[in-house]
């Protein structure tokens, strides 16, 4: 109804159903934030999250529009719907923030993360690791006689499950980029 897209409360007792953190579900949301690519802007955005006690599950940032000097920050955060709304509003009012999209709320989106896995092992375990990597479409980007480094791109869930499978097979280290996300369609 309004520019805020805040739905009108359905009851006349609107103050009753507030902020009972136990009653409300915690949701995970992916936010895309377009900011001026200036020093201190990332610190300001992160400071908002730490200062107001919001979660950051993952964060990526890079310049995406060189001509307009804009960077895109992708943050995966979690909270009750009210907290998510509040985060979006807090981000929106920051001076260097040009635009905010809640990709989770706005419709289907594509989410991808890149991860590197170092797996050490010999014999059966090594063969099994390679076999699973193929199934998951992970590439070998480095190999020695005792180790592989796999590269994989996928949703965070897919990366989690690959990591779970590699753990008993000699997983030594993981490096993850955090989520990059775009809405589907135009």
């Amino acid at each position, binding site marked *: 109804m*309004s520019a805020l897209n805040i739905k009108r409360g359905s009851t*006349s007792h609107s103050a009753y159903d*507030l902020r009972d953190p136990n009653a409300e579900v915690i949701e995970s949301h992916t936010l895309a934030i377009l900011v001026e690519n200036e020093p201190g802007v990332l610190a300001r955005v992160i400071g908002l999250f730490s200062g107001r006690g919001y979660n950051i599950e993952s964060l990526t940032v890079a310049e995406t529009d060189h001509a307009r000097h804009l960077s895109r920050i992708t943050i995966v955060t979690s909270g009750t719907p009210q907290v998510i709304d509040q985060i979006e509003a807090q981000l929106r009012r920051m001076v260097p923030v040009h635009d905010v999209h809640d990709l989770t709320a706005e419709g289907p989106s594509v989410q991808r993360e890149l991860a590197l896995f170092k797996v050490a092992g010999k014999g059966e375990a090594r063969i099994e690791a390679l076999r699973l990597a193929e199934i998951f479409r992970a590439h070998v980007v480095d190999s020695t006689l005792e180790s592989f480094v796999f590269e994989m791109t996928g949703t965070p869930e897919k990366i989690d499950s690959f990591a779970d499978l590699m753990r008993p097979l000699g997983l030594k280290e993981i490096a993850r980029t955090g989520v990059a996300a775009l809405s589907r369609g135009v």
Partner: protein
Amino acid sequence: MAKAMSGAMTGARMVVQALKDQGVDVVFGYPGGAVLPIYDEIFLQNDIRHILVRHEQGAIHMAEGYARSTGKVGVALVTSGPGATNAVTGLTDALLDSIPIVVLSGQVPTFMIGTDGFQEADTVGITRPCTKMNWLVKDTAKLADTIHQAFHVAKSGRPGPVLVDIPKDVQFATAEYTPVQRARTSHYQPRLKGDIDAITAMVEMLETAERPVFYTGGGVINSGSGASQLLREFVEATGFPITSTLMGLGAYPASGKNWLGMLGMHGLYEANLAMHGCDLMINVGARFDDRITGRIKDFSPHSRKVHIDIDASSINKVIRVDVPILGDVGHVLEDALRIWKARGRKVNKEGLAKWWKQIAEWRAVNCLDYKGSTKVIKPQYALQRLEALTKGMDRYITTEVGQHQMWAAQFLGFEAPNRWMTSGGLGTMGYGLPASIGVQIAHPEALVINVAGEASWLMNMQEMGTAMQFRAPVKQFILNNERLGMVRQWQELLHGERYSQSWSESLPDFVKLAEAFGCKGIKVSDPADLDDAILEMIRYDGPVIFDCLVEKHENCFPMIPSGKPHNEMLLGEADTQGVIKAAGAVLV
């Protein structure tokens, strides 16, 4: 090329030029190594007046007082390191109360940043959470533009403090000046017009409401005098009752017939019960602060709520509302009035008549009543006399923080906006004295009074030197209870009367202190002498320190203890026995 460079100047000169172009006539500041080039430029000109403070915190509060009382942007200038860190409390104060100020700080030269140089501090890092926006300018060519941006950001949307950190080499270097007209247009353009559908929804609600109330706040003041004017028109035309937060006092006149008085923790009985019992709450530029709501779960349980605010993050932050209206108060009220008139100026007359009858019963409780005395000056009495003897004068009031602040809000009446300067959101002791100087500098002929507690007042009393030097005839009206009164009150009610550290020991002799500064000191302790003393204070042509010895153990009522709903208000001493439970005691 030579022609293009016609506007070339040093960074230091740019600072002064940009301030002039922004219409600045006064800067509150304190020099130091990292701002000497700017001070050179200040020395070389006469358009901008520099007020030399005694502590940088004073400079920021003065800029706040100046801004709040004029509606313009206040400006302060401080040096690097300690100069900048001393500004932090004032910046936070301005952020929480949405006061537009621009602070310029010096910084070590760019090539020394990061070396722990002398008087180096990470000023933009330290002030990032307490500014609306801040900038470290590393290139002289960008300096003027950044200062113009700073002014734009400080006053646009929800106003607030901004800081521009300027390394010394940037002040010395030369570049082309960017005039205001050629400054980058900022993408930061908060929207002013409210959504018409939402405004219409509000109008529909107010046409039928049986028990409506306007709940107004500092946003009305920030929106400008036009907004106050529209609010008055709306209130008169609808006949609705109106209450306000501490920050919004004066937007609707205290003498207006629909005025319920301030609401909140120390608000009036009728105001808080109207909030609790209403069926339609129209929040105009307030933010459901915890001093206002009390226990969230029981806040105004039977009402539908409308919230007009320019800051989307204030909406649904604490209290979920039925109709959010994002926009500037003035613009939204204008549209609302127009739509309401066009639809035939309807209100629920019958419901309203009943509602006013109910309110009259609450008013009859006479919640500000206190026990008078002929032996000792009651603080409430002192304020009633101050009100009576200064009524109708061109008067501005600032306050410190504590009981005296709440009594001032209860007992002084404000007929116009921008006449009441107090630290609401941060509750900064030490705000009132420098703020009063800032106000006086902006309004040299006006009567400017700081209603103070003795403890708060001592926190920035060095600024009496500033008042003397710049002939700012501010009146320091100290309600001296020799106690950290508000702390003492909480200890009495919440901590078993264990008065830990809440005495003001070893107080100075305020009259002698006044003499030491070269101004006038007045001391009064007998209620019979009070009127004459106040008149003497008003008539004295210069700063006055007025030491009003008051009852030491007076409590401020009404009071809604933290964690309690509006309808569980304490009205007087008799109500206070064991009322506050452990759950409330953890709240502040």
